[in-house]
């Protein structure tokens, strides 16, 4: 693969492609050759299962981007998460420690809705007859208690072949502390059955809890063959073209990684969708001097939010899929950006339950039939329909003028709902928006207040199709003063993708007291982790000189389980800063839990981030052409701002706004893919990059 500098020399175009369930999207960022100003282009084609790479190729062609000009191609995909949720992965087997093949089925024994006695536990991804055991034990301290005995492995491999297994996961007890038995088993399986796709748990995580780690290995094996085929074909397709740039795959940890590394552990892509938007918000915050940012992405089906503190995204390693108030779900111990996602987007359906209460979401009208206003058969009002009825979305410029909003149908749907509720049509529409806002506020609180952060210390970066529509009201409720609606907010997540670093997060369970011996122990273990990380970069032909490390450690008071993660000083933990590190832990802890304990502090885990810049897009200021604000004015109309009442609002054409413009009247800014609501009392300004900055009036 050509190195980054060569690629830059060849071309300067940065492209993000994203394979979703319905559409494959492309966003292309390039500089206007004459003015140097940034041009953003988008393209969309239908997703092409099962040959997803075809859609990627098609969307690249459709966008008219010259393949040879592409320096950087970032690729995100929902292929992995879809394979899991649609149960379309490979036939998978498990090899584990003798006596523990049922761990995968026993799981943790919880029953989230304890009132329901007919609860059905989520079934394991590997049935019992495909779960095999090998003798051998490692202790929690990593010592061998009983040697590994692989004498039964040939028989196991025969059984795997007979059952036409495609993938095998290996997870042995305490492999987080010592991976020797697991590595030996993996090597033996690869030797005996090279045709099998094999994954061992230590390749993905070095954290304890055998059920979680086993399930992680199993799901990784489950998606690996499909991911492998897909990524290989994508690579081949691109190699056969004139593309000579760098292809990177978006990961769940807000970074990108190489195709080769992704093929090894594709499960790390599982939540890559929301990660790029969060990263974009963090990058934009750094650029604008806002180190503390709440990122909010409101799409058609869901809203996602995440907190960025001090410029750092929060990456966690205990992620669960399909977990809710009704089901235990499945754990995946991979680095995932810490976010809360709720079923509340523009297409979320408003409905009244059998006892007369109004709810919004989580059911969504999706893209088909879509909101009632699409006139494609939707009959239940959505948040988008309510925003149309309140005049916030322009019925005459719906979806950038691409669709004629069927307002008669919208009014009819709202009338049905308002009849049930016994309120007026307008009240029903306001109610829908208020409930939707409330749901999103709860989600924003979960990532801020519930983690001990005061939202008032943060700027809200809102994007996605609905971000600008709701941001001001949400900020007022949370007493956030500053809202940033990025330029091109509808495709902002793609911008985040092309701004990503190559990033790898390594988590490791590691136990020691935070005392005078800790600095040496931590130095040794971080040193080991860093050497392993560099060796991995090196083995993949990546330049290791540019790799920067960030170190975190998890601490707890002795005997507690739950821990707080603390960013360590650049020099690591030393005798000189031991007290300061403890203080940092206690400050974080007290912020979250309201008290301190006069108890010993323990280290329970290490978190190492290795990242390397792979050539970011330099953000260019937007040109000032000297337009007058009045030039951007499209008209005026009455808009219902619910609690603030009805006001005449000025309509602005977002494309005509330019840096330096300010206004403080109620307004609606209309862009092709988004609508920005400026509520009465808000001060709006366009910054030098074309972002809309709102200073929100506090209630």
């Amino acid at each position, binding site marked *: 693969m050509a190195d980054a500098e060569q690629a830059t020399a060849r071309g300067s175009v940065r492209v993000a492609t994203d394979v979703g369930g319905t559409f494959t999207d492309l966003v292309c960022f390039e500089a206007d050759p004459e003015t140097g100003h940034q041009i953003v282009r988008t393209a969309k084609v239908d997703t092409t299962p099962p040959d997803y790479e075809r859609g990627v190729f098609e969307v690249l062609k459709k966008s008219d981007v010259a393949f040879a000009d592409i320096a950087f191609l970032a690729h995100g995909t929902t292929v992995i998460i879809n394979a899991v949720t649609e149960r379309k992965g490979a036939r998978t087997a498990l090899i584990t420690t003798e006596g523990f093949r*049922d761990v995968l089925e026993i799981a943790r024994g919880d029953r989230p*809705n*304890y009132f329901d006695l007919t609860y059905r536990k989520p079934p394991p991804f590997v049935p019992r007859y495909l779960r095999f055991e090998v003798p051998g034990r490692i202790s929690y301290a990593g010592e061998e208690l009983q040697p590994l005995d692989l004498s039964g492995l040939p028989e196991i491999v025969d059984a795997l072949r007979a059952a036409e297994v495609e993938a095998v996961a290996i997870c042995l007890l305490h492999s987080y502390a010592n991976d020797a038995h697991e590595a030996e088993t993996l090597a033996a399986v690869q030797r005996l059955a090279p045709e099998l796709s094999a994954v061992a748990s230590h390749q993905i995580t070095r954290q304890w809890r055998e059920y979680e780690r086993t399930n992680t290995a199993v799901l990784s094996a489950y998606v690996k063959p499909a991911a492998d085929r897909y990524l290989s074909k994508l690579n081949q397709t691109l190699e056969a073209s004139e593309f000579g740039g760098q292809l990177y795959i978006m990961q769940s940890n807000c970074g990108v990684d190489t195709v080769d590394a992704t093929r090894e552990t594709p499960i790390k892509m599982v939540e890559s969708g929301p990660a790029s938007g969060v990263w974009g918000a963090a990058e934009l915050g750094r650029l604008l001097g806002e180190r503390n940012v709440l990122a909010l992405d409101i799409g058609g089906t869901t809203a996602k939010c995440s907190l960025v503190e001090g410029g750092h995204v929060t990456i966690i390693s205990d992620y669960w899929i399909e977990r809710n108030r009704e089901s235990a779900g499945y754990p995946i111990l991979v680095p995932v950006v810490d976010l809360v996602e709720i079923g509340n987007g523009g297409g979320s359906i408003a409905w009244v339950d059998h006892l007369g209460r109004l709810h919004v979401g989580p059911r969504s009208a999706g893209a088909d039939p879509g909101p009632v206003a699409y006139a494609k058969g939707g009959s239940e009002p959505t948040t988008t329909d309510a925003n149309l009825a309140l005049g916030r979305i322009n019925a005459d410029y719906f979806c950038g003028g691409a669709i004629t909003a069927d307002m008669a149908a919208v009014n009819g749907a709202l009338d049905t709902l308002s009849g049930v509720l016994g309120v007026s049509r307008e009240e029903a529409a306001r109610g829908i928006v208020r409930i939707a806002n409330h749901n999103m506020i709860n989600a924003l609180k979960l990532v801020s*207040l519930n983690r001990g952060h005061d939202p008032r210390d943060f700027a809200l970066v809102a994007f996605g199709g609905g971000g600008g529509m709701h941001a001001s009201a949400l900020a007022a409720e949370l007493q956030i003063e500053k809202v940033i609606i990025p330029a091109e907010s509808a495709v902002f997540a793609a911008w985040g993708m092309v701004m990503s670093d190559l990033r790898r997060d390594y988590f490791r369970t590691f136990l020691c007291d935070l005392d005078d011996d800790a600095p040496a122990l931590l130095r040794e273990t971080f040193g080991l982790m860093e050497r392993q990380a560099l060796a991995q970069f090196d083995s993949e032909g990546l330049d290791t000189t540019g790799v920067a490390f960030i170190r975190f450690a998890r601490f707890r008071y002795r005997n*507690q389980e739950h821990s707080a993660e603390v960013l360590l000083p650049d020099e690591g933990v030393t005798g000189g800063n031991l007290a300061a590190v403890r203080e940092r832990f206690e400050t974080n802890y007290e912020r979250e839990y*309201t008290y301190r304990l006069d108890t010993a502090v323990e280290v329970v885990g290490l978190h190492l981030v290795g990242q390397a810049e792979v050539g970011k897009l330099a953000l260019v200021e937007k040109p000032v052409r000297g337009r007058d604000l009045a030039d951007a004015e499209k008209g005026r109309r009455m808009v219902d701002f619910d609690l603030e009442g009805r006001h005449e609002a000025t309509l602005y054409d977002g494309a005509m706004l330019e840096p330096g413009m300010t206004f403080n009247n109620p307004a609606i800014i209309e862009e092709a893919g988004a609508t920005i609501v400026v509520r009465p009392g808000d001060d709006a300004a366009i910054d030098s990059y074309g972002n809309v900055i709102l200073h929100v009036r506090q209630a």
Partner: protein
Amino acid sequence: MATELAHDESARDAGQYDPFTIEIIQNALQAICDEMFVAMRKTAMSAIIYEVLDMGTAIVDPKGNLASAGAGIPLFVAGLDKAVLFMIRKCEEDGIEIEPGDVFVTNDPYNGGVTHLNDVAFLMPVFVDGEIVAWTADIAHWNDVGGMVPGSMAPTATEIFQEGLRLPGVKIVAGGTPNEPLIEVMKINSRMPDFLEGDLWAGIAAVRVGARRLEGVVRKYGAPIFREAMERYLDYGERMTREALKDLPKGRFTYREEQDSGLVYGCTIEIRDDTFIVDVRDNPPEPGPYNISRDASLLAAQLLLKAVSDPRPICNGGNFRPLQFFTKKGTVFDPEEPAAHGVYYETVLRLYDLLWRCLASHLPEMLPAGHHASMCATVLGGIHPDTGRPYTIVEPQLGGWGGHPAGDGSSAVFSGFHGLTFNCPAEINEARNGLFVDRLELNPDPGGEGRERGGKGIRADYRVRAQDGFLTCFYTRSRFPPWGLAGGRDGSPNYVEIRRTDGTVERHAEVTNFGLGQGDVVRIVTGNGGGYGDPKERPRDAVADDIRNGYLTEGRAREVYGYDAASQSVTDTL
């Protein structure tokens, strides 16, 4: 605040409140309960709280009605309103001033504690402008509160005085200032004072977090609409139950059942159009620690009503308004002071299982066949050979659930009185405690066959690493296994085996401070759930699948299912 004014004005003008603000406040009640739960879980020191989540949180209205229940275990969340109600009455009767910043503590079943002395509840009045608008409350199981045995729950206790320190609903924080002497008394009464203090602050932190959030909500919208929202939420809860009652079979149902102890427990349930009546007066007294307070008995009836009416995860006191409940003083379900309660959890589960069984044949789509139906509480301790420090495990066990018309029972789930409860991973168990987990697998014992079969219990081997270990346990459904339904077979029993290094094996259901030596294995076996329907009607491919997966032997398949693996083998491979 502009919004507040708007609401108050509209309320005066129209005589009613904005329904969407009401809705938003009601949602906030749920969110705050969940937030309290998270805060408590994260800070608790005892594994039984943070891993097993033997805890609960709730918001209670100023009259003592459960306004909103958090996650955790059902037994706890629906006990907290009763604790608050007790506290309100006690303060009235004794002339105790309730002040902002107060936090009350109780664990005594005769004084608002509901369950047993190990379960410590914190109750905090939430004041806005000098008035109580609600209470926040939480409860969790503490490892050791003193008493005659480590872990405090003694199967030989006959009086509550033997079961630990009694906290009768007193201020542990007065006007924001912690009552340090009381905390000192509590610590010195415990065998594990450091854990006690950590859990204590976790409990206090959680009610404070909840109170702070509630104050924010009330200040934003105003106290009148907040009160209205809580009241309407309770009304909503009541309507949930009343709507569902309409569809339940009406009549009077009675069930009597012999217990492992030889006592016979009985109940009568009458379902009417608008009332659900549970009568457990006709029951014996109980001399040991197996009594349950009237409030705990009421709780079992409430949860059964919830399960058969509207089991969606929305729960408040309104759900239980249609319930009438009758007990008789001096019986196991309504004991006289100072009867002991240490092992109350087993009896309350016995009562729940009895009420469940009483209605199951009439409501199989909501009530599956019997499950292992025992906490299988296991207390194991000794010295950790690597650290030299003592350890104690206090854990409930997973077991098999019963089959029901919609499918086979689940394997390895905690009992019906648990919910968001998690088992302890073997890897953490081995690090923390002085034992090796030799195996953790599904229970191979036969039982629970049916058209829809019962789920499997577990078989776990704990090998003790040092001398002078001990085991205390109390399992029920060891003589009488989980019950089958509609022709399904009974499941298999819960029991413990002590497998000595000399090869001897002893089987037990109940032991106290039982000595263990180095190398001894404690084998925990929990029941397979009862089957539903005639095993002969089980689809043949499902039987073949069970054999292939090792859930069933070929011999047992022939005997119970009438399935001959050899003659079926040709069609199976197709």
